[in-house]
């Protein structure tokens, strides 16, 4: 039997691939190419012509303290979001996996937040924590804590982290739960008979066997924290106060569309592209080695 599919018509395989390639070309290669091209120019204030500056935009970027600070913000933000969303999801999945009665209801409820659009999720949290009208802020005030994320860096960062992580928990939960259920029951039972307590079993058997899922989610969550949290940040803090929550992708938007510095914005996109590329390579090279398939 032939293992590879062989097409009789030479054009058919190309035709079948075309839609995917077209989508990738239009929505990835073309904009990415444009970004790389534009990063070498500075347009004039009216956008009538551009001046070629080579790596000028990049030189300027890496001597800009705000840009460098944004790197740090991004690192803190994505690490916190990834850790929080994966940790919480894993804990919920382990608990949901133990439940026998009504597990379907719990699972459905836990998956729901994923259906909420990022901007809506942002507004949801914003209303809860708004220093003037927010319910949670009001209660915090009542117990003597003066909550104001509009002025306080740490509180602003905490809020966007929680709001971003909250949305991702559902997604992670789903994968962790599937991962947990793929572990043969008898392996866990064997460990129980071997004398391992619940937490001992978790750390020595379940967690290592879950590592392919964990690794996959790590990659997905970091990419999520880098890019897809834009809506949450935009609605809750708008990058403030004082750029405390301006992560790289938000700065691309802020500098490009609000600051109208398109050259710098394009250069930032290119940097972001390289950073995420590198991160993914690093993850696959070094983290994957510790994964047991």
């Amino acid at each position, binding site marked *: 039997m032939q293992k590879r599919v062989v097409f009789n018509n030479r054009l058919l395989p190309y035709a079948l691939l075309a839609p995917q390639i077209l989508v990738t070309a239009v929505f990835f290669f073309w904009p990415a190419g444009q970004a790389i091209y534009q990063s070498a120019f500075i347009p004039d204030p009216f956008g009538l012509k551009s001046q070629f500056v080579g790596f000028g935009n990049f030189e300027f970027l890496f001597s800009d303290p705000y840009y460098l600070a944004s790197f740090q913000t991004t690192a803190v933000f994505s690490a916190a979001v990834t850790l929080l969303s994966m940790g919480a999801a894993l804990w919920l999945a382990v608990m949901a996996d133990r439940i026998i009665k009504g597990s379907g209801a719990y699972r459905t409820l836990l998956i729901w937040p994923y259906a909420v659009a990022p901007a809506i999720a942002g507004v949801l949290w914003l209303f809860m924590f708004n220093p003037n009208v927010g319910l949670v802020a009001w209660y915090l005030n009542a117990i003597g804590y003066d909550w104001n994320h509009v002025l306080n860096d740490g509180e602003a960062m905490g809020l966007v982290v929680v709001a971003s992580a909250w949305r991702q928990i559902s997604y992670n939960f789903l994968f962790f739960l599937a991962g947990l259920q793929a572990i*043969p029951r*008898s*392996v866990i*039972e*064997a*460990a*129980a*008979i*071997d*004398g*391992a*307590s619940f937490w*001992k079993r978790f750390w*020595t*058997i379940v967690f*290592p*066997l879950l590592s392919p899922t964990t690794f996959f989610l790590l990659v997905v969550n970091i990419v999520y924290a880098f890019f897809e949290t834009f809506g949450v940040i935009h609605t809750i803090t708008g990058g403030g106060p004082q750029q405390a929550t301006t992560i790289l992708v938000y700065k691309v938007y802020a500098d490009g569309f609000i600051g109208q510095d398109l050259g710098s914005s394009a250069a930032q996109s290119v940097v972001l592209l390289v950073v995420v590329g590198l991160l993914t390579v690093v993850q696959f090279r070094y983290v994957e080695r510790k994964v*047991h398939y």
Partner: protein
Amino acid sequence: MAQIAFSNLRKSYGKTEVIHGVDTHIEDGELIVIVGPSGCGKSTLLRMVAGLETVTSGEIRIDDRVVNKLEPRERDIAMVFQNYALYPHMSVFDNMAYGLKIAKVPQAEIRERVAVAAKMLELEPFLERKPRQLSGGQRQRVAMGRAIVRKPAVFLFDEPLSNLDAKLRVQMRVEIKTLQRRLGVTSLYVTHDQVEAMTLADRIIVMNGGVAEQIGTPLAVYEKPATTFVGGFIGSPPMNFLSVERLQGSGLAASFGEAAPALAKTVGVRPEHLSFCGEGQAAWSGELVIVEALGAETLAHVRLDDGEVIIVRLDGGRTAPVGESRVHVTCEADKLHFFGADEKRID
């Protein structure tokens, strides 16, 4: 080393009772095989002993301790699973050492105990391998090694050989028996294979529909099945069952008719106790349907006049009266088993 006792042991899932009260006492060092068809509750019984299923009512004692409420790890047992349940991310050594590490046994002793078990099971060359790099038989040995190193009071085997091919199964069966004899550990062994049950067991528990139909030594179970189910389940090919009325109308009515107790409904006869005979001595007559020559034995299927098919087992050298469309079958009167309307044996 331990004795195990079940008293009126029951298990229900919701309102459905799946084990209807099992009583038995297992002596120190005995190998007990629980045998029965799928869904008879044999695995559930074993898992209750292991502590993987809760006990609905009744008692399980290991030595003098009631273990109903104890966690698996507090029961001093080891279990070998059908799919081996090896830890896929650990080497063979770590698989065997896992329980000892948790019990905080000193490193040097762990190494020694694993080495002893590995030597016993001929696993020494594979200690650094992962389970997926082993064959089925080797994985089976690792699962046994993991049980042995812990020196438990009781071994539990849950259909450990059913994932192996036929040849390996026979080999491992002998090894398990030898090993159990050598270690002298009380063992409970669950299987659906009656040959495994007969060859391994000191005593067999035949289960059907959540009830222990008979408990006894393999030969006792074979020679005096307590119910028609046991007669049909133990022995291959199974016992033939016929109605007593047929017997009374036969040519052997004079000798058999009196042998049949008053309440007997069914008569059972093992295929090897039947033989072909002349029309004059015939207990049953019918038509020869098919002859299976297996070498050591030959199985002749005879369709009786009322459509019932019985199997006659002949020694390999002898052939069935081929070519004769009508054959006559008989057996000795003391080889008949009588069962009442409740399917229980009548002596």
